[in-house]
């Protein structure tokens, strides 16, 4: 599995070099206003994950990969490992840029931004784990093209139904509504994680969120492995 993960990283390196600078520039710009910073990070992490999957599809390298001494379950597990690393990389980049912005604000005697906090990072982990756990089974079941469409539809429905994004997605124009509050998404995930952190402390909230993300990805990986077993190349 590790060899497949290393393959993903080596093959995807070109996209990392292309996407990461764009990511950094965009995140830097967005961090000036704060609002949207969260979603820029989620979007960039998702794009990196999609880009790695696209490389197998675009170059028609799937028969090559599956002809190597690997099982389909290993291919699936390696892609989940890649997703986790991509998520961590994005979290690292976002945290570094957010921290730099926070420090520059503090140096100008302004308050530390609310959007640069532990609970926001944990919400990122949960939302990205959710996206990966929907996207990857679709990819392994239907391939890159149809899989992307299926995943996009499922994610759109799931985000609206569960109000992951925030009141704006559900059409709420109520007073105090909108997508962000102090640059923090108003969606249910963010609110839920913030409540967890308030009630049990950041460390406990972190453990709960990481556990939830791990369970989500594990269940998703089982579904994806079953889907991949049915695939023929």
């Amino acid at each position, binding site marked *: 599995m590790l060899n497949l993960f290393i393959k993903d990283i080596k*093959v995807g390196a070109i996209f990392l070099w292309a996407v990461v600078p764009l990511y950094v520039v965009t995140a830097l710009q967005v961090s000036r206003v704060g609002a949207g910073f969260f979603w820029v990070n989620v979007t960039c992490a998702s794009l990196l994950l999609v880009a790695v999957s696209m490389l197998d599809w675009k170059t028609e*390298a799937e*028969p090559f990969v599956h*002809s*190597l*001494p690997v*099982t389909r379950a290993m291919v699936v597990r390696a892609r989940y490992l890649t997703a986790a690393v991509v998520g961590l990389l994005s979290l690292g980049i976002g945290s570094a840029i957010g921290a730099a912005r926070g420090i520059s604000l503090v140096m100008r005697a302004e308050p530390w931004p609310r959007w640069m906090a532990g609970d926001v990072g944990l919400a990122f982990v949960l939302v990205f784990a959710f996206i990966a756990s929907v996207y990857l089974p679709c990819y392994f079941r239907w391939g890159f093209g149809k899989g992307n469409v299926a995943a996009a539809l499922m994610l759109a429905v799931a985000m609206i139904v569960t109000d992951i994004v925030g009141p704006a997605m559900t059409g709420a124009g109520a007073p105090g509504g909108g997508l962000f509050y102090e640059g923090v998404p108003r969606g249910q995930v963010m609110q839920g994680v913030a409540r967890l952190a308030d009630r049990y402390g950041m460390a406990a909230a972190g453990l709960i969120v990481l556990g939830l993300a791990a369970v989500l990805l594990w269940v998703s990986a089982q579904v994806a492995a079953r889907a991949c077993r049915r695939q023929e*190349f």
Partner: protein
Amino acid sequence: MDPILELRGVTKHYEGFSLRDVSFSLPRGYVCGLIGPNGAGKTTIVKLILGLARVSAGQLRVCGDDPATAEIAVKDRIGFVHEVPTFYDHISVEALASIVRPFYTRWDQPLFDALAREFELPMRTWFGSLSRGTRTKAALALALAHHAELLVLDEPTSGLDPVFRRELLDRLAAYVSDGLASVLFSTHITSDLGRMADYITFIRDGRLVFSSTREEVFARWVVVRGDPGVLDEATRPLFTGVEIGAHAFTGLTDDAPRARTHMAGQDIVIEPATLDDIMCYTGRTC
């Protein structure tokens, strides 16, 4: 003999095509040419061996193991060259080798380096900018560098120039000469096999027509040519395929002695069939 590859009643169903009840085996140290027209099922067999598709029924064994239950062990002993070697276009041959190397327990880096030099592979050039022939050479170097016991080649020579085709065939003949490795060579270019195949397996419309040694094939299969007037109800069943022209017929049979006996004294010519004849005339009725 110890078969390195064995198919028993292998069946694979697709929508619109089925490979049905295919059985043949390949002993260690030999080359088997898998022939058949386009769409006959050659690539399906290759995919089943490589685990890219699952067998619907029957039994497939590679090096004595079932690829479905010993997938990694089996694939570790197989080298493959797909019809169009597709790897990642944006990485170099060198990088590709570094990706492939850790997957194989018997990867031999000095051997790969020697093959790369012999094939004059541009190691730092992106795979996507290589010519078709160079891609095949790179794929072959990767396949040979881990001491594969079974080389599975799917139409490796289509689109290649004659010089490299000859080099490739020589290389494959040398590869099996120690008696330890075998080659399954799927092709519709039958002239490639005349020089090197020990066994010929002919697939048509998803069914096995025959799988025999090359000597048996050329001893049994003959082409009969003559005046169409000699064809009657008694002689027609001799042929597995017949083409009737304005002035002559051409018939293919896998029973040369019977054809000679039945048509003795007739105005006919009996010639050994080529693999092309066998592919072209099998099943042809006029």
